[in-house]
């Protein structure tokens, strides 16, 4: 009689403990089931993500990659004052143009006023924040007025885009030769 009442007295605690153990075990297995396999391999993250991150496709290449096919541009650009300027900033990413070594699409080529806009992105004097030691700048339209041409003229009429001093130096050379004679 006495012992029976004692069991009754503790039974709710026992039930509670069993329930907690069951929940704990279920929770443990649920966690195993739902967290990815490589979770916690190197820390509190999915270890396999490092491999995934490595495999993000590369879309931009280097100027060298363009030179492999564009030999004429290579001859001009590599030696010119624009050798540090990226082809892909002016033309677009490699991945839109070449895949597995074959041309898959065309890259845009800027024309007319767009070219002037492109040049002024780097060479516009009105942007005072540009350090003068980094780049030579021109004021517009003063630069064109100085050269005595109409201000509608675009930059590529005198500057070869891939080496802006190419034609100018050639012209200077020719004048120099004439002066010598």
């Amino acid at each position, binding site marked *: 009689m006495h012992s029976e009442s004692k069991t009754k007295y503790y039974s709710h605690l026992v039930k509670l403990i069993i329930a907690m153990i069951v929940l704990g075990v279920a929770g443990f297995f649920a966690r195993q089931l739902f967290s990815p396999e490589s*979770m916690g391999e190197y820390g509190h993250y999915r270890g396999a993500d490092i491999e995934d991150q490595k495999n993000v496709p590369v879309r931009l290449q280097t100027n060298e990659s363009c030179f492999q096919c564009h030999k004429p541009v290579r001859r001009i650009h590599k030696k010119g004052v624009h050798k540090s300027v990226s082809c892909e900033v002016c033309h677009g990413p490699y991945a839109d143009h070449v895949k597995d*070594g074959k041309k898959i699409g065309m890259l845009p080529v800027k024309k007319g006023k767009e070219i002037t806009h492109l040049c002024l*992105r780097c060479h516009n004097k009105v942007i005072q924040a540009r*350090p003068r030691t980094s780049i030579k700048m021109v004021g517009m339209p003063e630069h064109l007025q100085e050269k005595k041409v109409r201000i509608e003229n675009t930059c590529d009429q005198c500057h070869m885009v891939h080496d802006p001093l190419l034609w100018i130096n050639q012209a200077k050379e020719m004048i120099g030769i004439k002066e010598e004679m």
Partner: protein
Amino acid sequence: MIDIKKEIQQDRRAFIKKVLGGTIAGSLLLVIPATAQEVAEEIPGMRAEDSVFTKKKFVFIVDITACIGCGSCCVADKAEYNVPDHNYRTWVERYIIDDHDGVYVDSPNGGLDGYTKPREGLPYPTRDTFFVPKLCNMCEDPSCVQVCPVGATYKTNDGFVLVDKTRCVGCSYCIQACPYSVRFINPVTRTAEKCTWCYHRVRKGLLPACVSVCPVHARKFGDLSDKTSEVWKILHEPHVISVLKPDMGNKPALHYLGLRREVV
């Protein structure tokens, strides 16, 4: 069809020779790519590293005294990752400090379209003006990693702070936690995104896209464990170098050359 039959009948040997010649030439074309090969390694020794984490210690240095604010880096970054419009993994800010110590900052479209106009309507003459490119600071103690509830943002043993797209639930805690505001929720994937210093390129031996395209070499990236590297020299010789918000205690691996104290 009829022609081929005729040809075979005329001279079997010659025909077989012709076909064989064709196939050999064809297979040669496949073997020798007439075109693009892999470009040379830009980070020495990188392609030889095959362990999970590299043994290098990378740092990024931005030279404020060289940056011309052309936005080439922004163009390259957008193209490399197809970043949706009005979100920026890297951007360029223009600072103007006037002779009354007023500080004005602007960044039209993150500098993606370049700077075309001078800033107008400021009350006092300009004392100092310069560009500050911004990107992930790759903190040694990243607050974004601490707050992520699902282990989606993590720091690798070689110092890269990355976001696991498959784990991220888009709760934006990390965006709140980042002292440098480099994170955003990608409207397409609805997960947190930020600059990774082009982890995928670096692991393949290429420089980060923004470093590769910078025409004035204002962005420098390299290995601090290599004492011959440019970055080692900059950080170990007298230079005006600083990090952003040093008192936050995040210990960024992104350093700035010629940083003014007004920059935040």
